[in-house]
């Protein structure tokens, strides 16, 4: 059903695949303990011993990047998943039943999605505080309108088709029609939205952690690493470079996947 053979998709798949592999391996093993400080090897440049060098505490940057990438990926994935589930249910129900609730929610939705997500995320963080669970909660909340709107639009469209009438004639209950009959037809459209949202989540988490209002120590985060690395730009540029490139690769991978699937690559 979906064309997965074009070059862009494959490039995206390769990049994402490699990143995921590294992350997965990193969950059980990294060349060094990411938190192990080594006073003797502070700010060492990349070498065979330390692939990406060491930071100001002598910690191995490669191990930290792998760990940070894993954390960023996880946070992004969980918040997208949460937003997806709630958004699908909300959008499905409103699209199906329609009425004034639907109108109202859509207006609200339109207003919300017009805002840059950073702003909303910052407000939510201001309300609930920082830390990795709050970030997941804030980002998840932010994604609900995105998914709800798409699902609602598609459900409203699919509802008018004859196969839905046919299902009703069969005596299938409304909820079953909605979630078992209609939903599988919406999945293709959702896929590229999921990829874009994932990217937005990665960037949002990295941004907020960079600003200091995101993931807090000792939890790892590429964004916070970038912040630390900035102070050592002249003495150890590889520190900032590695953290930044890791973010870029994560985003690039999913961006290419999404474009390969035929979706837009912008939120």
């Amino acid at each position, binding site marked *: 059903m979906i064309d997965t053979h074009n070059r862009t998709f494959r490039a995206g798949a390769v990049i994402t695949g490699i990143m995921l592999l590294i992350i997965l391996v990193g969950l059980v093993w990294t060349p060094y303990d990411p938190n192990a400080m080594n006073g003797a090897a502070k700010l060492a440049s990349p070498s065979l011993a330390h692939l990406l060098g060491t930071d100001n505490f002598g910690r191995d940057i490669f191990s930290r990047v792998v760990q940070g990438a894993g954390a960023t990926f996880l946070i992004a994935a969980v918040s997208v998943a949460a937003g997806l589930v709630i958004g699908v249910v909300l959008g499905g129900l409103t699209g199906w039943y329609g009425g004034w609730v639907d109108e109202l929610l859509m207006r609200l939705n339109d207003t919300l999605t017009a805002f840059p997500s950073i702003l909303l995320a*910052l407000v939510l963080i201001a309300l609930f505080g920082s830390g990795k669970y709050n970030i997941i909660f804030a980002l998840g909340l932010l994604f609900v309108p995105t998914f709800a709107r798409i699902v609602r639009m598609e459900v409203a469209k699919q509802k008018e088709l004859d196969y839905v009438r046919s299902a009703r004639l069969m005596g299938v209950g409304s909820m079953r029609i909605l979630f078992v009959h209609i939903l599988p037809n919406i999945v293709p459209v959702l896929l590229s939205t999921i990829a874009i949202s994932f990217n937005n989540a990665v960037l949002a988490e990295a941004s907020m952690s960079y600003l200091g209002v995101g993931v807090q120590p000792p939890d790892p985060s590429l964004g916070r690493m970038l912040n630390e690395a900035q102070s050592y730009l002249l003495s150890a540029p590889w520190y900032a470079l590695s953290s930044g490139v890791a973010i870029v690769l994560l985003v690039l991978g999913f961006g290419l996947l999404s474009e390969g699937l035929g979706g837009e690559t912008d939120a």
Partner: protein
Amino acid sequence: MGTIAKKTGTLLLTLLLVSAMAFLAFQIIPGDPVTKILGTDYTPERAATLRHELGLEGDLSARYLRWLAGFITGDFGISYSYMKPVRQVMQGKLAVTAALSVLSWLLVLLFSIPLGIALARYHKGVFARAAATVNQVFMAVPPFFIGILFTYLFGLLLKWFVPGKFVPFSESFWGCLGYLFFPALAIAIPKAAKTARLLVSSIMGEMQKDYVRTAYSRGNSRWMVIRTHVLRNALLPVVTYLAMSLADIVAGSIIVEQVFVVPGIGRLLVASIASRDFPVALTIVVIIAALVVFMNYVADLVTQFIDPRVRLS
């Protein structure tokens, strides 16, 4: 004329809704600022006076209306951290962010349009393929990382600017512009890449249409067709996108201002959230939100005027 009136009505309503939502959001936060500010100096009298000064008396709707009335007239309340009027705290910063955003927006415009046209014109060569890939990479690079790279490359290595030492407008116009150029560019690059890509796909989409075939049959070359016929129509969605981009750019400046230590409202917002200075945070949030809503409104109107299809309906 009727549609404009309707849209303006929606605009005002949305602005009201947005301000209400933002105001409400900041009310949910637990903790009483008065007790925190007074600390050990707390007495019921002082608390009452402070409460009055900060506009914290009365129930929710009373406070909201009071705040709204103040906001519209330019009174943004008192900052908890500085104990000074928010307006004073924000003085000058808004202008800096505005300058940064406008500069960035112009850079986006400057780069994306020619780039998009060029990519569409030479869309079949190896060069174009490579350029498209590079474009993809640029779309994936977050502005704050570009900012850090610029700081390293242009600031520390090439010494074209001193990272962290913002040059105020009062000191030197060109110095200020020169300093803002780099953060503006950092924000502009991914946006320009996305805009260029939008333009390319828009042009490609137009090329499939019937009137293009007619143009070809009259003997026009591909480039002529693009230049004279297709471009005007293809630019339509791009114009809308650009109008809405200003809001994203302002949002982008929130982070980039941190990287380059630019004294704008973005940096102030982050600081106010970290220090729980809610009047400042609320004011900036509402300003940015209002800007977003307003820009969408403008984009909507602009589309109305340019797009003949929409005008006729």
